């Protein structure tokens, strides 16, 4: 038996809509009679949590402790006037959004402008129209309650997601392992950018016992937290799989079987897994519907596309994959990428794999290997906003 509770989260319950009348209001007014009139007016309007200050200095001292939801502020006061109170409150991040309703007998346009410039939220002119003042107060309080609730929601989740994002970054190979490929005569650069806090992309590399380099680039369907969950599962599975002898085709088929047992229907991943063999100068790989790998061979004007057709993993048990090869001679460069790189929209047209190859070729002609990727990423960013998780891996062979 499974029961699902459809209530809002606990957080929302604790911050549920309070009646605006429960709000704390601070009246700042130096004239005793005016102050009493305002307080009486607020009481008649149903407000009971009312504090007061007799000038600006006292108001500023009181506010952090009283924590008002709204300040009703006079302008002309001894010691510190209302303009300065506005300015000082706005300079304090804690009171950026605190509604400040100025009430003043100053009727000139310049005074109102000055008050708004100083940070007032609203301005009413004396003599006070009681109904109007109460209506304005309620509008500000309701608005503030809404903003508060939404901000609390975001703050609560932002902390959690920041931790989760760090966990996801730790799934990727540590820098030390990336440096290790240098002794194989290879240079690896990578770029990993989920489209929101978390994403469905994953990549990995291992130096196999026989000295070859194995590399994975995985893109789970969807993005966000759900897709990220699947990268954690894949990472757990990969860590437990035997890597020797390593054969990309058999490995991919085995991954598919494991994922088919775990993933919900409609979820899947495209995977490209391959081995760089520097002795034979080949990149041998298997692909489950990943974007085609690109290789620049020294002397060629244009890159070569590897065939990458194959059923994504997690869709059908028993799927088989093909062994494929593409030459990667000394001085050659291999680019693996998630589909966000080629499915980038420039206006109403999609960049496409050919467009990506063109941009990457231009970038590669201009800068050395170690800067190639950062230039390519900049070029892609110039084209338009990325709506999906982007991962790019570049493996360059020394000449």
């Amino acid at each position, binding site marked *: 038996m499974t029961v699902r509770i459809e209530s809002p989260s606990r957080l929302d319950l604790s911050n549920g809509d309070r009646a605006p009348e429960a709000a704390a209001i601070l009246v700042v007014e130096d004239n005793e009679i005016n102050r009493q009139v305002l307080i009486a007016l607020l009481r008649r309007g149903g407000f009971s949590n009312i504090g007061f200050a007799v000038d600006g200095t006292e108001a500023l001292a009181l506010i952090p402790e009283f924590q008002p939801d709204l300040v009703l502020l006079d302008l002309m006061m001894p010691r510190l006037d209302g303009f300065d109170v506005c300015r000082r409150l706005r300079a304090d991040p804690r009171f950026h959004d605190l509604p400040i309703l100025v009430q003043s007998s100053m009727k000139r346009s310049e005074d109102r402008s000055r008050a708004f410039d100083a940070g007032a939220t609203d301005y009413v002119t004396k003599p006070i129209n009681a109904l109007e003042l109460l209506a304005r107060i309620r509008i500000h309080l309701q608005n503030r309650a809404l903003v508060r609730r939404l901000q609390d929601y975001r703050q609560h989740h932002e902390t959690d997601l920041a931790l989760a994002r760090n966990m996801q970054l730790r799934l990727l190979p540590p820098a030390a392992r990336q440096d290790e490929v240098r002794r194989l005569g290879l240079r690896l650069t990578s770029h990993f950018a989920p489209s929101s806090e978390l994403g469905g992309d994953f990549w990995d590399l291992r130096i196999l016992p026989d000295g070859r380099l194995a590399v994975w680039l995985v893109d789970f369907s969807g*993005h966000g937290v759900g897709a990220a969950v699947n990268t954690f599962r894949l990472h757990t599975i990969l860590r437990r799989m035997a890597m020797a002898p390593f054969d990309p085709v058999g490995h991919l088929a085995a991954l598919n079987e494991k994922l088919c047992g775990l993933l919900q229907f*409609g979820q*899947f991943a*495209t995977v490209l897994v391959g081995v760089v063999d520097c002795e034979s100068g080949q990149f041998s790989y298997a692909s489950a519907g990943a974007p085609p790998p690109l290789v620049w061979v020294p002397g060629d004007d244009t890159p070569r596309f590897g065939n*990458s057709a194959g*059923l994504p993993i997690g*869709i059908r048990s028993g799927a088989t994959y093909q062994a494929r090869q593409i030459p990667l001679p000394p001085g050659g460069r291999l680019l693996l990428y998630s589909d966000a790189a080629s*499915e980038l929209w420039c206006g109403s047209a999609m960049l*496409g794999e050919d467009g990506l190859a063109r941009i990457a070729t231009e970038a590669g002609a201009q800068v050395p290997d170690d800067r190639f990727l950062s230039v390519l990423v900049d070029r892609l960013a110039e084209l338009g906003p990325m709506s999906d998780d982007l991962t790019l891996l570049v493996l360059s062979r020394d000449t």
Partner: protein
Amino acid sequence: MNYRIEQREHEVAVEISGRLTFNDHAKVRALIEELSNSAPLRQVLDVRQLEFVDSTGMGMLLIAREELAKVAKTLVLYQPQGQVKRVLTVAELDGVITIEN
């Protein structure tokens, strides 16, 4: 994504246009519901005007096929073009979903 349903004698034809992405989840659910409840056994998704499908969109097509198979109906993708055709080919989905070119 937008769609238009046409009931024919022996099949239901759904013209799908625009981009099929993550954002269309609710629409696709409603569409699957509608197709599951319509009588013809053959349900044709006319995707000639569909210009883009992302991975979530593809997942939704797989779910649609599965849900319709559960009620003994066949889902057919009719004449995918451009990026949609390329994605379906690279992912070898012609072995999973019926595609008519």
